């Protein structure tokens, strides 16, 4: 095993010291904008990423994730704002001199080089001794499970294999900051989960800072310390996975991350940290008061399907709980969970997810079953409309 200090000794060995000495993030993106013609791909975006952090960027297609990564790697020049790495503006640092590596969205493997030479490319540029290069390549090949394919050319590989070569090639140099643009998108579920675990393991072992772009929310939740959600070139919310899921900052975030029921309503009464809301199609509901003051009485209630319970009769300890009557109109069996669509008597439709805890569930709710849906006030998020 070689250690991280073998390559780029200064960068990696000193990084923790610098962080300790100055309360400075490894990466600071400060008001960065990028325009393509009249179109603004990244719009005044600011972001701090700490050394050793695993940061995920989520967002719909075309929101500027790749553009942001390309600016970090040096392939695009920001039109405004600054990018600081280790406290230093890297605007003038050419891509090949940045201690940053990127795994490209379309892999960009060198077609004339074998798998081995693709992985070794960056190591040769770092002028490492030959045995060291061979050892590092072997380690990377083992890491991404490409054993036996070292001599193949990229066009003799499957999509997933290419992706793994690209990953190995970007990791081989053990950069301070590794940028990954949808690194696992072409892998099958099982391989993806294994690679996720290995990436996390590796990231912890090397202390490298990862910024990963992904479309897969579960992937972001599983791997990342923090997640930034982008929309139209801006960051809508930066938070830990739990915060993002349980306390979305806006109605858009709530709808984008995970599955959720959104019900519009009007605040009618506010006391003792409880709001009484006249919800459209769901009657009068009691919910917890949000920390931030609401701009108006018109609000939106957001509640996750798994936070709602169902029962045939109203729960006996109904004190403080919201219970609404309705009829099951659809049942979706997903293995571990079943998702029920409940048509409320007041008019709205709720999605409810229940764990399938019993194998022989003779008591499951069927379509047409009259049920009571109930949830605690704290399980509902109140968002401005």
């Amino acid at each position: 095993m070689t250690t991280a200090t073998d390559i780029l000794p200064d960068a990696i060995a000193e990084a923790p010291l610098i962080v300790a000495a100055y309360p400075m993030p490894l990466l600071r993106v400060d008001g960065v904008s990028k325009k393509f013609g009249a179109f603004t791909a990244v719009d005044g975006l600011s972001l701090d990423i700490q050394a050793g952090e695993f940061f995920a960027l989520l967002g719909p297609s075309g929101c500027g994730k790749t553009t942001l990564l390309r600016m970090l790697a040096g392939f695009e020049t920001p039109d405004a704002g600054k990018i600081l790495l280790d406290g230093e503006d890297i605007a003038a640092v050419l891509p090949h001199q940045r201690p940053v590596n990127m795994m490209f969205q379309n892999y960009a493997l060198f077609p004339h080089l074998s798998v081995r030479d693709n992985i070794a490319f960056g190591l040769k540029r770092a002028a490492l001794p030959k045995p060291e290069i061979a050892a590092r390549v072997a380690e990377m090949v083992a890491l991404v499970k490409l054993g036996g394919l070292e001599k193949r050319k990229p066009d003799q590989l499957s999509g997933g294999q290419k992706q793994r070569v690209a990953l190995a090639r970007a990791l081989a140099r053990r950069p301070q900051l590794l940028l990954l643009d949808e690194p696992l998108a072409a892998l099958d579920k099982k391989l993806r989960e294994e690679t996720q675990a290995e990436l996390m393991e590796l990231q912890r072992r090397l202390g490298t800072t990862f910024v990963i772009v992904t479309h897969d929310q579960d992937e972001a939740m599983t791997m990342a310390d923090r997640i930034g959600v982008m929309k139209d070139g801006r960051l809508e919310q930066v938070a830990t996975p739990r915060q993002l899921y349980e306390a979305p900052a806006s109605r858009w975030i709530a709808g984008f991350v995970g599955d959720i029921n959104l019900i519009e309503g009007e605040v009618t009464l506010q006391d003792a940290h409880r709001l009484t809301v006249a919800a459209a199609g769901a009657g009068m509901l009691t919910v917890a008061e949000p920390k931030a003051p609401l701009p108006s009485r018109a609000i939106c209630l957001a509640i996750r399907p798994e936070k709602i319970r169902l029962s045939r009769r109203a729960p006996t300890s109904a004190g403080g709980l919201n219970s609404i009557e309705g009829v099951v109109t659809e049942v979706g069996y997903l293995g571990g969970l079943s998702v029920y669509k409940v048509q409320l008597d007041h008019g709205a439709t709720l999605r409810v997810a229940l764990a399938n805890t019993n194998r022989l569930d003779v008591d499951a709710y069927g379509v047409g079953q009259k049920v009571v849906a109930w949830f605690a006030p704290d399980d509902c998020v109140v968002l401005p409309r």
Partner: protein
Amino acid sequence: MSARTIFTRPARRASVAPYIWMVLFFLVPFGFVLKISLSQTAIAQPPYLPLFGLTDGIAGLKAAFAALSLDSFWLLVSDNLYIASYGRSLVVALVSTALLLAIGYPIAYAMARLPRRWQGVAMMLVIVPFWTSFLIRIYAWINILQHDGLLNQILLALHIVSAPVVWLSTDSAMYLGIVYSYLPFMILPLYATLAKQDGALLEAAADLGASRLVAFWRVTFPLSLGGVGAGVLLCFIPIVGEFVIPDLLAGSDSMMIGQTLWLEFFTNKDWPVASALAIVLLALLIVPLLVYDRLQRRALEAR
């Protein structure tokens, strides 16, 4: 899947067309030339013997076959003139091709780096000279290079030289003419391979620590080798047999094989030797083709 199963019947029939073409316009004429090269000169019309004909029946044909000989080929190896001509042709072709590659590669590279909408214009500029007859363009060069031609006038006006320089009838003039005439054949295949290269590869190279120069040598250049091979063959082979340019621009002290061939054919009326010259030339030119083919196949197998 084999070719047999993927081609439909009409497609298979169409795929025979190139072979018919080859037989009609290459193999049959080649047979004539080969036969003439094995004949003897004669003061007759046509100027060689024997003639194949059916007038004397089978016996006549047999006699004609018996009269064929390798005399002309023996003459080629016994006379220094011919070997020198072949040698000069190869040297001229090698030097010219090297010059063409050295000049053509940067031009093709620059063209491929132009913004898309300018690439078409650049391509037109490379092709435009073809709209004027080749001969006229060479005569134009004679005009420029002659004693009181444009080049000497400019050099004198700029006081770079004090007396007119002799350009015409020198090897320099010939190389200039060859490079000028063949440059598009070098540029176009190079441009084609360079233009279709994925720009992301250079970004990946830069990302992995390669400076622009290193990225060029490790990525761009190796990936353009197919175009280099095509350009080199496209220039080298016709230059070996080039006749007009050396005849009009070079001196008369040494001849390329095309000139020797012309001499044998038109001045000496020695068709058999001229044909033998052509056949040996063909054999020589097949060598680089085979090498190229072998390399290509190896590159494909290595994939």
